[in-house]
């Protein structure tokens, strides 16, 4: 039986809005924990995207933070208030966190204004009129002013999402938890709403944890992404950094298309089926390398090493660029070039890395 880790509560960092450490949560009847020893913090004015495939524990993490699920181990602090540690468990209503659910969970028996006013109490404004004004202000902030007499069923999906956002913001929280808030909207609407959210965060300085399985969403909106798999936090960092220097093969493939090459490293180069490849760091012995499709180019220099010749097996024209699938020793690689580099199906060409390959940990799941 694992005991709760006996350690002092972490120090309060002035910049951190929400801090969780060593969070673990297991559902009864399941042997593997849904969330395993997860630690992360959100700063003011920051959007942190919890990214991962479905079932990786990201929604469970969010529910644990909100107090809707009881993490059996771990520490959660909102501002200077401890929400959970070994001796405390605050119920959700005392955590002061704003939550937007995936299906928004708008109260169907209440109108738009009553939905937004739901979280406001005497503590926020002593009079009903004052609470109404606060709710109207929250609606204005998400661009829904004037809709307050409507029934929630009459709203479009995007409007419902903004009502849910206004409802979560109205009590004046400084941390928002968003569970796949854009997943049920059509693609055209998503872009605009993401932009709105980013502007809102920049303007108000709240901290946001956003759960999503959509890597483009995470990378386009978040200041930092945290990648989860099977309840484990694999890597955190700015989207660009995580994309460029993925820690493991899973991170590399989850964040975008990549070519995984096995090679034998000696210092800052490795011997791979593609020939000698420059590495992003020193390594020795057998390594797994990640080389993004846009970091490989066709090489028309005939004098070079012939060993790494590949055959073009597929070609996808995408307008501004071209994607080729090429065959190399039984492995299919992807090459992305601008429309200039021409090769036909069946051509034998040679590949040349144009950027250093990234050494990654091999966490590919064996089927």
């Amino acid at each position, binding site marked *: 039986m694992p005991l709760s880790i006996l350690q*002092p509560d972490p120090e309060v960092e002035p910049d951190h809005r929400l801090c969780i450490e060593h969070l673990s949560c297991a559902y009864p009847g399941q042997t593997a924990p849904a969330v395993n020893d997860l630690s992360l913090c959100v700063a003011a004015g920051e959007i942190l995207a919890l990214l991962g495939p479905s079932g990786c524990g990201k929604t469970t993490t969010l529910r644990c933070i909100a107090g809707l699920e009881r993490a059996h181990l771990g520490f959660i602090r909102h501002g200077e208030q401890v929400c959970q540690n070994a001796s405390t468990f605050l119920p959700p*209503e005392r955590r002061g966190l704003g939550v937007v659910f995936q299906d928004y*969970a708008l109260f169907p028996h209440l109108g738009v204004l009553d939905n937004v006013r739901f979280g406001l109490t005497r503590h926020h404004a002593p009079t009903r009129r004052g609470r109404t004004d606060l709710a109207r202000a929250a609606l204005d902030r998400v661009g829904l002013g004037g809709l307050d007499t409507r029934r929630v069923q009459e709203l479009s999906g995007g409007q419902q999402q903004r009502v849910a956002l206004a409802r979560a913001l109205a009590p004046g929280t400084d941390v928002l938890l968003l569970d796949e808030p854009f997943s049920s909207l059509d693609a055209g609407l998503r872009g605009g709403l993401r932009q709105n959210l980013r502007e809102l965060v920049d303007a108000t300085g709240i901290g946001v944890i956003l759960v999503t399985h959509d890597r483009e969403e995470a990378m386009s909106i978040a200041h930092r992404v945290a990648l989860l798999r099977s309840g484990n936090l694999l890597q955190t960092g700015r989207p660009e950094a995580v994309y460029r220097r993925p820690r493991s093969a899973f991170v590399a493939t989850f964040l975008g298309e990549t070519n995984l090459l096995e090679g034998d490293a000696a210092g800052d180069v490795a011997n791979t089926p593609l020939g000698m490849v420059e590495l992003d760091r020193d390594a020795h012995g057998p390594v797994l390398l990640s080389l993004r499709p846009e970091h490989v180019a066709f090489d028309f220099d005939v004098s070079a090493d012939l060993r790494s010749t590949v055959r073009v097996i597929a070609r996808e024209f995408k307008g501004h660029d071209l994607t080729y699938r090429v065959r190399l020793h039984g492995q299919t690689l992807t090459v992305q070039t601008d429309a200039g580099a021409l090769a036909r199906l069946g051509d034998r060409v040679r590949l040349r890395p144009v950027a250093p390959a990234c050494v990654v940990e091999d966490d590919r799941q064996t089927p």
Partner: protein
Amino acid sequence: MKSAFCRTATPLRPPAPWIRLLPDRATLPAWAAGLGVLVPLCFLLVAGFTGDGAAVRETVLRPRTFAVIGRTLGLAAAVLAATTALALPAAFLVVRTDLRLRRLLSVLLVLPLAVPGYLLAFALLSVGGRYGASARLTGFELPRLQGFTGSLIALTLYNFPYLFLTFRTALRRLDPTLHEAARALGHGPWRAFRAAELPQLRPAFLAGGLIVVLHVLGDFGVVSLMRYETFSVLLYGSLSFAPAYAAWIALMMLGTAGGFIVLEVVLLRGRRFDPAAPGAGRLPRPVALGPAGPFLLLALLGLLAVAVGLPLATSTYWAFQPVLGFVNRGLTDPALASLTVSLPTAVLATVLAVPIARLAVRRRRAGASVSQGLERLAYAGYATPGLAFGLALTAMALTLDRLFVSAGQTLLYQSLPLMIYAYVLHFLAEAIGPVRTAFQQINPRLEEAARTLGRGRVAAFCRVTLPLLRPGIAASAALVFLSAMKELPLAVLLRPAGYDTLAFNLWDLTGEGLYAEAAPFALVILVLSAGFVAVVLLADKSNITKTK
């Protein structure tokens, strides 16, 4: 370092299911409802073993007991066969053929459900014979139906809607490609139906059939008026002179009911009827009836005429006949008595149903089978035959009275609270249905959203879930209220002095052959039944519009 000892830390390995069950407050109402039925039933054993053991054994094991067992099982089998013979063709005609008026009939054929059995018995008894309505009106003497035939007809007419409903649902859900595949494999239309579709109807038959059999077993009104001696009649008859014998008969009734429930489970076990692949999702081509159509339509309308029209016609006729004058019972006192019992029953049963329905719908991730079992426990009061439950409660009341009050005094025995207690547990299952449906339509995230907006557990429930449950709660309360107004066996056994309900009066007067005196009660009960149907249809309709 702050005190960080692991008070809230729970072991990673989940504890055994029964341990998790015990401290969970959510399961308490279900436990209360189940034990509230099962504990009194234990007092039947107490009553059965009091008195002279040898004498009791002799009375229990006499041939008459076995004859009654045979008659009860025979009646149940006959009713099951007759209801199936009516319900299966009727459901098929309504769902799968081009019968005219089939949408209307689909609703109308459920109506007999609302007419209580003893009212049908009143209609059948008062129409035939030398002094019957038909002889007095037309001079033509219809045979006076009594005994086995009378019981069979009355019980069939009010029970066949249960099977009709389950068959109708099952037929609608059948994937038409099954039939088409059987036809393509060389079966003719009849053989294809028998080989491919009939076996699929088995769960529907077993579910509906169990309800029918339990109703026959629990019936008291019909068999007592028809003077056909089954368990109920024998139990009621031996109540005053041989209470231990009555207790043994009640135990036999319970054993039989339990046997049927186990039988249903056993017959369904290990069989899978869920489709192997997603179906075509289209409706099969309706079977063309051709010239037989109008005759079949007439047959169904005739069935309705007997099941609904006859009780209506006879009670109206007798209501305008002169009364003999030596029995004079006003409607007011019985109506008040019925109200005094039914209103608290409706409120309490609904209040109890809400947490049980919540448990059933929002089951915990791992405890699914456990909470399902607990929900079944709440149906114990429905499955227990009314007379047996009533007798058990009487036995319990007498035992407790002996402990707490001086001899000769009664506290619980024949008290109104005891009667209401019995009614609540008996009708709890009816209250769970609509509340449960309402719960299923409420997104569980709503309550969580209210929690994250600063409302406590109770406030979140009251301000979000309760308003959304209101239609379901209203339907539950109305259903229980109307059923309680019509309840007979529990009223016969448990009514306190001065609480002769409407149903009791109708049964009592019909038993004496005083049809003109009984008719006003029959009319009132028919009006209540119409209200029952209206509530069911309205609740059904509001569900349909909500899901759209």
